[in-house]
Every structure is written in structure tokens, then in C-alpha cells.
């Protein structure tokens, strides 16, 4: 808990900066990240041409580019950039909300068992030879099943307290992780095994407009729900008893938050596999900037999460001819950044 507390230490000074200026800076960062991501890739297209292709969709222009250029920008990179931004924003927002509800800065969206569940669903679909929408549907459904299991098991005498929830999440997560291992054990080493392994590590390489269309409703609905509940989450972050004393149906509200997180996480895992670290690290960075109030934290986390995943995905798809799994990069960047953030927060705390 102490970590949550320290972050607010800066609130008065930060408020000296006008709100709109901060919002503008974060939005600008996101826009720059998105445009940069759109302009780089293995297929060589000059940045001004890339942007011209994009603009040609809204304004009449003379096309001085090839059909392939246009397809790469509009069919490959645009949906991929949007999908990466969407998932990054969604995962970061889920992390921020969960860390608030659990009053614990070490909580990440994986904690509710949704990611391992969705991972199992996806792996099962791949090993049965399905791809595309069947894979997405299976991942989503299994993620929801995992959450429902956690909910049912954690509920004792009509209530589920925090420790029980986290432990149950760990147990169900381990169960589904074991099922994933079982699938890997059973998978054909020539075909489905490498596909499962790569999918589990996370990637946006299969991004299409159709996939974006599948993921977007889930992620957007979840994010919108969390945004509307921003003040509720603030109150929930006071702790269960305080919130109940303020007349809130804590149990119900918490499950609404979890449902929103499951929606986001299930949709993200379904289209991009398991992308770790974003939901854990990004909210910490956002808290350093704006403090713990979800009303500021959620939008800033969303923008930072989107920018971060855009950066990571750009690296993943263009650093080498081979696709680097996202999970590898998010962990390679996330772990040291997280360590640095923790140290900085601790130092601030000691300096109080």
C-alpha cells in the first residue's frame, strides 16, 4: 500500500501545471507514437508517402504510390497500429483500475485468471486446427470461464475478500497454465506446437481490420465501463469497509470492475495472445505523473499504455526480418523500467 500512498506526494506541485497542458502533452505523445508506428516497417514506404496514403482516405489526392504501398499502409499497418494502441490502452487501464480496487500496486490484469484462461482457449483452438474467429472466440470464452470460476470459488458465505480473490486467481491461473502445458505436450511439433508457442508469447502480426473489429467492442466497452466507474474505483480504493460504510455495494461494484477487466483482457488475448507487463508497469508510470486519482489516472494510463505498446510493436515487427514476440520485448523493457520505478517511489517515500 505504501507505494500507492507515495505517488500522491507530488500532487500539489503537479497541479501547478495546467490540466489541459498535461492532457495535451499525453495526447501529442500518443499521436506521434501512432504516426511513427505507421511509417516504419519492413516494406519500404517513405513516411510522407505513408501519411499521404492515409490522408487520401479523407481528402482527394493524386496517388503516386503503388497498390502494394496502399495495401501495406491501409490493410497491414493501420489496423495493426490501431490494434496495438487499443490493446495497450485497454491493458494499462485494466491494470490501473485493478491496482486501485485491490489497493495493491503489484496487481496486474493476469491476477484474475483471465489471461491464463484465454491463453488456454486460444491454444486449444490452435491445436484443434482452428484459426481466425474460432480462435478469438475460444480465447474469449475460456477467459470468461476462468473469471467465473474465480468468482465462484472465492465466494464464501456470499462475500469474497481480497486475499481470497487473489489466491483463487493464482490457483485458477495455475490450473489453466497446466492445461496450456498439457496442450503443448499434445501438440504436433511440426505444425501446431510452434504456432501455440508463438501465439502465447503475444503478437499483433495477424492484425486485420476484421480482428480489430472483433477486439474493439470488448476493449472499448470495458474501458468505457471503467471510465464511467472512475469515481467508484476511487472510493473502492479506500478499502472494503470504508466503501461499504459510504453505502456502496462493494461486492457488486468490484465484480463490475472485474467483468470490465475480463472483457478487455479476453479481447486483447484473443487477438494478440498474452501481452504481459503493460498492465503492471504503465499504471506505475502514470501514477508518478498524475497521482492515484482514477479520474486522471485512467486517461493518462490509456495514453501511455497505447504509446508504449505502439513502440514495442514497432520494434517487434521492424527491428529484424523475423517477428520478435511482443512478450519478449515488453518483459525486457518492462522489468528494468519497473525496477527503476519501484526504486524511485521508495526513495520518494523515504524522503518524506
Amino acid at each position, binding site marked *: *500500500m*505504501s507505494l*500507492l*500512498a*507515495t*505517488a*500522491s*506526494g507530488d*500532487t*500539489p506541485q503537479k*497541479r501547478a501545471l495546467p490540466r489541459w497542458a498535461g492532457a495535451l502533452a499525453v495526447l501529442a505523445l500518443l499521436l506521434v507514437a501512432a504516426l511513427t508506428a505507421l511509417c516504419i516497417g519492413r516494406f519500404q514506404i517513405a513516411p510522407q508517402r505513408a501519411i499521404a496514403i492515409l490522408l487520401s482516405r479523407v481528402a482527394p489526392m493524386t496517388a503516386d504510390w503503388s497498390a502494394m504501398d496502399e495495401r501495406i499502409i491501409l490493410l497491414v499497418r493501420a489496423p495493426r497500429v490501431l490494434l496495438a494502441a487499443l490493446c495497450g490502452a485497454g491493458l494499462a487501464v485494466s491494470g490501473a483500475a485493478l491496482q486501485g480496487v485491490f*489497493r495493491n500496486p503489484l496487481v496486474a490484469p493476469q491476477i484474475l485468471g483471465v489471461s491464463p484462461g484465454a491463453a488456454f482457449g486460444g491454444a486449444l483452438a490452435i491445436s484443434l486446427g482452428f484459426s481466425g474467429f474460432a480462435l478469438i472466440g475460444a480465447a474469449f470464452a475460456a477467459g470468461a470461464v476462468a473469471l467465473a470460476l474465480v468468482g465462484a470459488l472465492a465466494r464464501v458465505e456470499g462475500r469474497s475478500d481480497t486475499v481470497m480473490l487473489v489466491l483463487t486467481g493464482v490457483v485458477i491461473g495455475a490450473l489453466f497454465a497446466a492445461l496450456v502445458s498439457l496442450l503443448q505436450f499434445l501438440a504436433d511439433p511440426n505444425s501446431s506446437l510452434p504456432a501455440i508457442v508463438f501465439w502465447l508469447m503475444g503478437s499483433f502480426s495477424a492484425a486485420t481490420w476484421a480482428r480489430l473489429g472483433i477486439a474493439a467492442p470488448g476493449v472499448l466497452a470495458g474501458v468505457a465501463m471503467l471510465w*464511467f*466507474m*472512475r*469515481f*467508484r474505483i*476511487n*472510493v473502492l480504493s*479506500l478499502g472494503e*469497509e*470504508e*466503501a*461499504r*460504510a*459510504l*453505502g*456502496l455495494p462493494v461486492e457488486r*461494484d468490484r465484480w*463490475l470492475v472485474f467483468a470490465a477487466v475480463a472483457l478487455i483482457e479476453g479481447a486483447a488475448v484473443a487477438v494478440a495472445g498474452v501481452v504481459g507487463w503493460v498492465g503492471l508497469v504503465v499504471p506505475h508510470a502514470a501514477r508518478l505523473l498524475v*497521482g*492515484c*486519482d482514477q*479520474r486522471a489516472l485512467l486517461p493518462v494510463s490509456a495514453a501511455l499504455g497505447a504509446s508504449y505498446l505502439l513502440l514495442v510493436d514497432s520494434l517487434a515487427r521492424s527491428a529484424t526480418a523475423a517477428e520478435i514476440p511482443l512478450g519478449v520485448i515488453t518483459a525486457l523493457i518492462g522489468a528494468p523500467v519497473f525496477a527503476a520505478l519501484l526504486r524511485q517511489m521508495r526513495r520518494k517515500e523515504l524522503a*518524506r
Partner: protein
Amino acid sequence: MIGLEKAGAQRGRRWIFTDISFMLEAGRILSVLGPNGRGKTTLIKALAGLVPLAAGRRIAPSVIGYVSQSVGADIPYRVLDVVVMGRARGLGLFGAPGAADNRAALDALELVGARDFAERPFDRLSGGERQIVLLARALATGSPALVLDEPASALDLANQNRLLTVLSEVKRQGRHAILFSTHLPQHALSVSDDSLLMLGPSEHSIGPTRAILSEGNLTRLYGLPVRRVTLEDEGRAPIETVVPLFAGAAP
């Protein structure tokens, strides 16, 4: 307004208290006294609706202005944001506080004399200041019933006095029924109209504070000799207080 009717609460199979009945009206203060472990906190939480009753019933408005005993230094928000959370219930699931809510929160801070704290981070306040702010939050709920669990237990003498002053000020306005638990009979004598003594799981007495806090009752309650004294102070009205006769304080 707020009260209990033949109420009892259990932990496991053990009864914490049984058969407590009272009714508190607006403009009145009830203090709850008892030694450690006698169930003061359980009673307070039962009144706040946080602990289910095993017997009897609770009569209370839908929201209670509740101030818990253990409010940590870990609430990472601005004071105004903390106080405005008192409005949460009325805002609905998807609501966020607006100008009217902020005004109510500021009014509450005004009432407890903490208007200046509004922009400060809550976790940087002293324990006494936090307690005052939480009282403001309880007021901001708009509930006519305030329930406080040992609000003064962590405070130094000056802050104790400040809190008691605020409580009597709130009482004077006549819109709230106030109920608090305390370890110090002096607090009860200072502000409360009525007192509830938790003598045993099934034994308690309730009545006007001055009558019920007799030397006999207090000695029985705490298991040590206690004296009621009236002190004259120059230029002030005489005040009544209680002196526990601790061991070994020979001059």
C-alpha cells in the same frame, strides 16, 4: 433516527452483546464506553451496518456518516477528494462528483473548521487532522446520523479538545444524531447527552451521561477506582471530570 431494538451480535457462537435497545434523535450525542474487547467496535459497526445483527433489529437511515477507528495514512488523495467521496452513494454507479458535491464537501470542511485543508494531500495530514477531515466526510454524506469509532483515541490533548469542540458544534446545529465510542469517560462527560456502558456481554446500562457515569459504575466498568470531581478554574464555569486512580502515583 438511529438506534437498536433488542439487538445482539455474535462472533462465531459467542455473543458479543445481547439485548441492546436505544433510540437516538437529532441534536443528541450518545457515547459508548467499555473496556477493551467488550465489543464497542462491534456495536459501532453494527450501527453503521457493517456487521450483521444476530438478533433484534437496527433502525437507521440508508446512509450513515461513519468514521472508522483505523483510518490509515494510506489514502492517496487530496483532502477535498476524500471528503467528496462521502457523496458516492448518491452519485450512482457511473457518476462523478460535480460542482454541487464539491460545494457540499467544502461546506462540511467549513463546519469542522478544516476549510484550509481542502487542497492538501490527505496522507500528509497529522492523525488529528485526518480524523477531523473524516468527520467532514461523514457530514458530507448528508446522513443525519454520525457514527464514530473511538475518534479521539490516537489524538493528543489539543486535538482531542478540537474534535470534541467540533462535535458539540455539530450537535448545536441540531441536524445530526451523533454516536461515538471512547475509552475516556472525560470525553463522554464533555459532550454526550447519554451514555451506554458495556459492562458485560449481556449486561449494559444506558441513560443520561451525568447520571450513568457514576463512580460506582465506572469502577465496575474498568476494574479500578475512579473518582468524579468538579474542578473550578479561574474565569471559567466549573467543569466535571473523571479521575482514574492509577497505581503508584504517590507524590
